[in-house]
């Protein structure tokens, strides 16, 4: 009787071991990242439940980010257009296109992406960071990679096989997007002079403090309040666009009606969104020239001049921009803030307090191949 039971017990034990082993292979025991920190004033953030922050996913995402294997010709990496030293922009007005010429948009800074808008790209065409991460890979003018070929190439690499197994289990397009998204989510810049000021550790200079006050104020001549009006689009602590719904997209008066690009309208189909673009974070803005979605302004001075007297009027122009004027009485042919040179200099001085050297030089975000080569 007992003898008859032994093979059964053995079979049960074997299948249990197999099940546990297979389970371990299928769902990796990745290490959750619980230690990252961000200032309280950054506020709420959300990480997708199917892509928790883990150390293994971060390391894999970083490697993928810096690896030209992601492109069709194995020559272009994400890092080709996103340099850490430039807060993950590329210093170009518009990045070069593989088919010659330039891409329509400037490479965006990748900073504090867990906060601010929950749509990505200048026109908001990606609804998650996972989605965003794979779009340039397969775009014919950016990295021109066929996804199934990329998966084959990654499967051929012992290092990637190990890293995917440890982080997600299998090598797939979804998991490439997830790993890149994890790396980008952890690009947190929170150690600028402004952060130190917010923590109460540093005082701003008189000019920076004057600039901060102007940054935070919508002008109101009726109560003699002067302002740079920045806060109407750039939140006070994050300095990014707003998070709720489509609040983080705006028409900031770059083009007149006749040449106004579609912008967000391309995604929503709503004519009220024509010429709307994603309001970018101003974190590290001093190192991310040139400026605007098409890189049309070379310096922060040019940006300030635009808001001061260069606003182009169109039907969807923000009424907050059209109405914000520091001078009494309407100007005949100028739409803008009409600030003094000193006031504009002060705002630029404040913008320089948003540069975070720790972030720009943090080895954790740096090219992992450098040590290997």
């Amino acid at each position, binding site marked *: 009787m007992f003898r008859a039971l032994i093979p059964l017990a053995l079979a049960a034990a074997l299948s249990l071991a197999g099940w546990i082993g297979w389970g371990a292979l299928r769902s990796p025991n990745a290490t959750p990242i619980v230690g990252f920190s961000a200032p309280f004033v950054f506020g709420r953030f959300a990480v997708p439940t199917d892509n928790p922050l883990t150390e293994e996913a971060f390391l894999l995402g970083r490697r993928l980010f810096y690896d030209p294997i992601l492109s069709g010709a194995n020559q272009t990496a994400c890092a080709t257009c996103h340099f850490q030293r430039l807060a993950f922009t590329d210093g170009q007005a518009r990045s070069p296109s593989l088919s010659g010429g330039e891409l329509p948009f400037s490479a965006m800074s990748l900073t504090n992406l867990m906060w601010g808008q929950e749509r990505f790209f200048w026109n908001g065409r990606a609804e998650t960071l996972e989605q965003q991460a794979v779009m340039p890979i397969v775009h014919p003018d950016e990295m021109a990679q066929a996804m199934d070929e990329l998966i084959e190439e990654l499967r051929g690499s012992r290092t990637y096989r190990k890293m995917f197994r440890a982080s997600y289990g299998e090598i797939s397009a979804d998991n490439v997007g997830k790993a890149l998204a994890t790396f980008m989510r952890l690009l947190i810049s929170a150690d600028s002079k402004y952060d130190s000021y917010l923590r109460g550790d540093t005082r701003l200079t008189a000019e920076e403090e004057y600039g901060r006050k102007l940054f935070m104020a919508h002008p109101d001549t009726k109560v003699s309040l002067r302002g740079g009006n920045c806060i109407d689009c750039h939140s006070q602590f994050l300095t990014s666009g707003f*998070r709720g719904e489509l609040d983080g997209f705006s028409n900031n008066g770059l083009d007149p009606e006749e040449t106004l690009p579609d912008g967000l309208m391309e995604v929503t189909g709503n004519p009220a969104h024509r010429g709307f673009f994603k309001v970018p974070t101003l974190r590290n803005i001093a190192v991310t020239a040139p400026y605007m979605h098409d890189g049309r302004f070379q310096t922060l001075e040019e940006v300030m001049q635009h808001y001061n007297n260069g606003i182009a009027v169109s039907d969807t122009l923000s009424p907050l921009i059209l109405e914000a004027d520091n001078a009494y009485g309407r100007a005949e042919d100028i739409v803008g803030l009409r600030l003094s040179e000193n006031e504009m200099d002060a705002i630029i001085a404040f913008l320089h307090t948003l540069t975070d050297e720790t972030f720009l030089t943090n080895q954790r975000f740096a090219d992992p191949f450098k040590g290997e080569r």
Partner: protein
Amino acid sequence: MQMSRALAGAAVVLALLFGGWFTLRSDPDNTLTITFQARSGRDTLVFDEFVYANPGGDGEYRLRDFRFYLSNVHLIGDSKTFAEPDSYHLIRFDNSDRAHSLKFAGLPLRSVEKVRFMLGLDAEANSSIEFRGDLDPNSQMAWNWEVGYKFLVFEGGLLSDGEVVPLVYHVGFTENSRMLEFSIPEGLVLQDDAELRFDVDVAKLFDGQTIIDMAATQSVKFDREDAKMLADNYANMIEVAF
């Protein structure tokens, strides 16, 4: 004898436990949806079209944004008051229904006879940078942390003589919060999908205690008398819908 005493003791304990359980269980666990419907007059609100007359002057206006903070919701019924914790809601209408719903679950009430809430924020919330409810100092509703929040935002344009001028009405300052109370005749029994509907009439913002000529007052921001004028008007823009 000993035995039966012990049994009687146990029975009493059991009865008490059961009694307590029943008492707890009998506390109702009801749900309520409160829906705010944006209107101008009797019609559903329209965004981005010059279809509304300037109440105090010439021209037609359009809205591109209308939203407000509603806080400190109290539901009163069964001689009990339910005060919602962290009760800070941003009411916005940029959706296809032009409506905004608040859902309350686990209510210890069987019916609602009165609803009380504040348009705007209490002084404590208005001077805090804590993230509670829909309060968010990094949002569009924050002026900056020294001034507090905008309570109500109305942005748009006025078309007059073929020209469009911007309209910007931002009302804040703690003194401009308004506590409103509504009685529900015959009460609302909280069963099935109980819903209470309110109409929010945007037109009342400019056509109330003061009738406003938008061409003369194109913006209201930090001037306290202007802000109070709009607040006195918005105190009457919400009504129970039947």
